[in-house]
């Protein structure tokens, strides 16, 4: 599609994470967007409805009365053959919950921007990954972004990936930290994005074909439906790489299931997702200048989970997994998966719940204690006992 060496046409725009998601949505120009804004994802819909009001998109913007309705409207539109997007956070995602497995079960390629915010109670508007993590087993692909730049890139990637494998996608960014921080974001011109995402041509739709969507499948066929979803997830892993590499030809970014930062020769490695990865990189640069071999594995793709690749990348290292969410009564979500991949020398760090700050000094301390074998198996950072 794109020739190697073709000049990239990007310009820099000052955007927040929310602004980057909305800008990508403007360029994708979905057929239908259903909206019920919630903090901290509100600006996505503010920006998008401005683009809509100014005639820069020709999407149908449906204003609904709840998140449950927003996702239900998305289901109807997607089943009718439309390209559909929306956005939400926290309790908003919670209120969509009943419809989420319907979307994946019906194999509708809906793309949702989720601005991570902790779940109530107690009521809190700040970032942790409790909302998206509680939706991790519902058949949605999950991609986490480090900064506004990755938010933009992931949106373009997700449209192609979702439609290719017929699975819905959640795109995560950290509430406030990423969603409200203005940085310079490289963006493509509208025509290039239009060419990259192409037109959505679903195989079958409610409007054009004589089909039933949302059928009953009891003991005879339910399991078979589920097996098809499992196969689609496996397929998504392969397609993710292909589409990500194609996208890299038009906008350079860190490609792959995860980013390895000074990881190859590292003795101790942190595994983390989203904005905290930036602080970890800064600390790594500092510790490396003092001769300490530390590195980072920043995971992008959480569902489907790249077990084999991670096991290979972390082989022989002391691994510190940092979770910004918990699974009450069990190991933390990211830690569990890394452990499942077969990594043995491993520690679990829980941090930042409800937006609790994590400082560069905290990360430095974690690395230094890990190198001295003084890190406990499970530790909570920055919390009063």
């Amino acid at each position, binding site marked *: 599609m794109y020739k190697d060496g073709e000049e990239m046409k990007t310009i820099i725009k000052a955007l927040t994470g929310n602004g980057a998601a909305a800008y990508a949505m403007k360029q994708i120009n979905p057929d239908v967007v259903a909206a019920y804004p919630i*903090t*901290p994802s509100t600006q996505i819909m503010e920006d998008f409805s401005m683009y809509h009001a100014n005639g820069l998109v020709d999407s149908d913007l449906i204003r609904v009365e709840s998140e449950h309705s927003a996702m239900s409207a998305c289901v109807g539109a997607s089943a009718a053959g439309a390209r559909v997007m929306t956005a939400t956070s926290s309790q908003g995602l919670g209120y969509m919950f009943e419809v989420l497995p319907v979307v994946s079960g019906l194999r509708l390629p809906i793309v949702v921007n989720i601005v991570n915010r902790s779940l109530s109670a107690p009521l809190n508007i700040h970032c942790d990954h409790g909302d998206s993590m509680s939706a991790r087993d519902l058949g949605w692909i999950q991609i986490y972004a480090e*900064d506004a730049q990755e938010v933009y890139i992931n949106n373009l990637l997700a449209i192609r990936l979702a439609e290719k494998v017929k699975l819905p996608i959640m795109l995560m960014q*950290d509430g406030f930290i*990423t969603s*409200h921080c*203005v940085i310079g974001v490289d963006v493509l011109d509208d025509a290039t994005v239009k060419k990259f995402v192409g037109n959505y041509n679903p195989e079958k739709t409610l409007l054009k074909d004589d089909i039933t969507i949302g059928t009953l499948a009891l003991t005879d066929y339910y399991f078979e439906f589920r097996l098809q979803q499992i196969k689609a997830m496996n397929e998504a892993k392969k397609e993710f790489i292909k589409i990500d590499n194609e996208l890299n030809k038009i906008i350079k970014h860190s490609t792959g299931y995860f980013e390895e930062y000074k990881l190859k020769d590292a003795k101790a490695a942190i595994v983390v997702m989203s904005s*905290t990865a930036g602080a970890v990189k800064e600390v790594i640069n500092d510790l490396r200048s003092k001769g300490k071999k530390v590195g980072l594995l920043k995971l992008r793709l959480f569902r489907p989970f790249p077990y084999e690749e991670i096991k290979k990348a972390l082989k022989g290292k002391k691994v510190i997994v940092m979770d910004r969410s918990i699974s009450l009564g069990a190991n933390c979500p990211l830690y569990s998966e890394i452990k499942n991949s077969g990594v043995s020398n491993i520690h679990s760090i829980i941090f930042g719940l409800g937006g609790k700050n994590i*400082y560069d000094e905290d990360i430095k301390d974690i690395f230094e204690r890990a190198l001295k074998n003084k890190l406990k198996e499970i530790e909570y950072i920055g919390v009063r006992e």
Partner: protein
Amino acid sequence: MLFEIRIHSRGGSGGKTTGQAIAETALSEKKWVQAYSEYGPERAGAPVQTYVKISDKKILSYSGIKHAEIVIVLDDSLIDEKVVYNVPSTCIMIVNTNKDVKPVLKKLGFNGYIFTVDATKIALDMIGKNLPSLAIIGAMIKASYGKIIKMNAFKDRIKKILEEKPDMIIPNIKAVERTYNEVKKL
């Protein structure tokens, strides 16, 4: 070189705009930037701190700022321990006020450079509204000798920021020129 700026304002008074305008100008000068506000429950009038980081290389960490080389106070009723928190002795503090704030800042232990300008009056004179959020940046450019951002780049940026309110461009640029000329070092 990483420059860190902290802006103290009240919810709805434009501190976020100040931060974003500085960041966008620095971005147009090919610098790497971050600009964000500290959020709590959204209330008009509540104290809000906005942070801007400007650097020659990519800023990786999203952790809070460590040393505010420049502090901008958009509302002088906000002067307390928070405005002098974590500032180096070379800190440049720019206060929107018509009062002599030196004694109170000294009492709080501030040893840096104090600059004052009545940006509210200037905004009322030039724009006709109490919107000093862009105007105050003129004083910052003067006080920092244009080392953070340049006046011309900032004026160009104002045209972009106010693209959809074209009649506000000239009054804002004039207000910026006035704070640049009228800012006083105490």
